[in-house]
């Protein structure tokens, strides 16, 4: 860190301090930096040949497009739902609030594969709860895009809420009460007062959700099934290509996924200081 050199002297034994730093840096290096950089290294072993080869493969292009569509749809759903639930949790009191609060963290705790299986049980076309009825009405959920969007939305569900809730709590409802006393209705109060207050939290939550949604593997793989490549998303494709000994394509797609995620995190890092200054 750049600031380490100019830090004021603190109590503590110097070698312990250095050992601790070494430990943290080593941990991050062996767990995160080294493996990720090896993916990049393998991707660019032959310059940009790997990437351009991969982008010539229609399967890869289709998978990337599908991943993008599913991720954006899931993020939009989580954005609307997340802001609504956050308002509900912070501004209103109702029986069962604590249970709802705990339920929101379930997607973080449960394995995505379980999420996928659960969705298949409820929505599959033959013996699911709603599946047959939906299919009769022309909407196939499982083994199709709607199911994949649902699975992705489920997995990324807490991210927007957990960003927005603390900001809403800290903001308090003073400003909203003031707006009401000045004649604003619920929608005007939300749009003119609440929304500007939680704007950065929403942006942060959306970016995190997007990164998470792009990379979702387990839940989507179970729900998508294997319909001749039609429902193969980018992470699933990486696994398939890797197992079919097309390592170079696998590395290239993996790199693109990692790059997109890192890009999201960089956007977040750039947004954070702005938020702190406010």
């Amino acid at each position, binding site marked *: 860190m750049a600031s380490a050199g100019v830090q004021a002297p603190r109590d503590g034994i110097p070698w312990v301090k250095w050992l601790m730093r070494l430990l943290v840096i080593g941990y991050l290096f062996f767990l995160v930096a080294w493996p990720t950089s090896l993916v990049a290294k393998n991707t660019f072993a032959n310059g940009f040949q790997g990437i351009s080869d991969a982008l010539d493969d229609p399967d890869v292009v289709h998978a990337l497009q599908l991943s993008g569509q599913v991720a954006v749809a899931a993020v939009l759903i989580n954005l609307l739902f997340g802001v609504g639930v956050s308002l509900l949790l912070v501004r209103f009191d109702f029986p069962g609030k604590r249970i709802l609060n705990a339920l929101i963290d379930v997607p973080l705790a449960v394995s995505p594969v379980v999420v996928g299986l659960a969705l298949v049980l409820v929505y599959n076309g033959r013996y699911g709860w709603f599946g047959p009825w939906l299919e009769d009405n022309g909407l196939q959920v499982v083994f199709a895009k709607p199911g994949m969007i649902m699975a992705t939305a489920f997995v990324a569900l807490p991210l927007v809420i957990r960003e927005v809730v603390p900001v809403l709590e800290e903001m308090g409802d*003073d*400003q909203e*009460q*003031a*707006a*009401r*006393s*000045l*004649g*604003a*209705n619920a929608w*005007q109060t939300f749009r*003119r*007062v609440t929304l*500007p*207050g939680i704007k950065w939290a929403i942006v942060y939550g959306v970016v995190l959700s997007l990164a998470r949604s792009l990379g979702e593997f387990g839940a989507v793989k179970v729900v998508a099934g294997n319909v001749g490549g039609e429902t193969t998303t980018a992470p699933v494709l990486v696994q398939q290509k890797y197992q079919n000994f097309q390592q170079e394509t696998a590395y290239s797609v993996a790199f693109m996924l990692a790059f997109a995620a890192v890009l999201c995190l960089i956007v977040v890092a750039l947004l954070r200081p702005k938020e702190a200054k*406010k």
Partner: protein
Amino acid sequence: MSIEVRNVTKKFGDFVALEDVTVSLPTGQLTALLGPSGGGKSTLLRIIAGLDTADEGTINIEGTEATHLPARKRNVGFVFQHYAVFKHMTVAKNVAFGLEIRKRPKDEIAHRVDELLRLVHLQQFAHRLPSQLSGGQRQRMALARALAVEPKVLLLDEPFGALDAKVRKELREWLRRLHDEVHVTTVFVTHDQEEALEVSDEIVVINEGRVEQIGSPDDLYDRPANDFVMGFLGEVTTVNGHKVRPHDVDISTTPILAGAAQGTISRILRVGFQVRVNVLTDAGEEVAVELTKSHANALELDEGITVWVSPTPGSVARMEKVG
């Protein structure tokens, strides 16, 4: 009568915040709701504004039945203790908020905002954000924002409570002058009896969810309805079984006062221009006396000497309850 509160009761769980409160607040006046913290005065104000709802009872504002009206339709200006400024809007935008909600023409809004900012002496801060203002300036901005919509009544919830003593004193004098200019019916909540006595036309004393007394500052100070009001409006001491204020006790070094109690000075404390003397009477009462420094010097008071104390003729005194 501008605001009619009838038989209002409000409970938070087991806690009774207001118990069968009935008050009439007159049009065009500056009324203080005075009482100790947790006594229910803020709750009453919030119920008048529609920010809380009463469990029982009715609210009538300027002849309009308001009990079931939402806050936004009551046309009430509300000023919060912690300002509740819109943090992301400039000072001018804050003040314009209510007018923009009402979809007034742009030039009318600009004109009115300018007028109001002049009124609260913030015209040079129009384009600043609230975070760049001091506490006193923020509260003046909040006041301008509340006045912008030309409310029928202006309600202030401990408006100066979060400010330091000097600014608080300045602002309350300013509020009084402002009220004399604008003449909008104003109700403000305070736990500071000096603030209430200095600023208001009428004071409603509220304690433990009930109205203890309603009257002008002089009424309350000179004719307190009960011991609580007397004690809350200022210090009280007991001489010969009479409850009086310490500055209403005469003290002399010779027994010239008829019916005076004899005692010895146990303590003398000088605070600025004032001298506080504690006298232990032979009857066993501990009497507190307040007098000016020059008066005390003239009497050559000292700890341990014998003095005679009695209530000043013409002062307010209440008989102490026996038993």
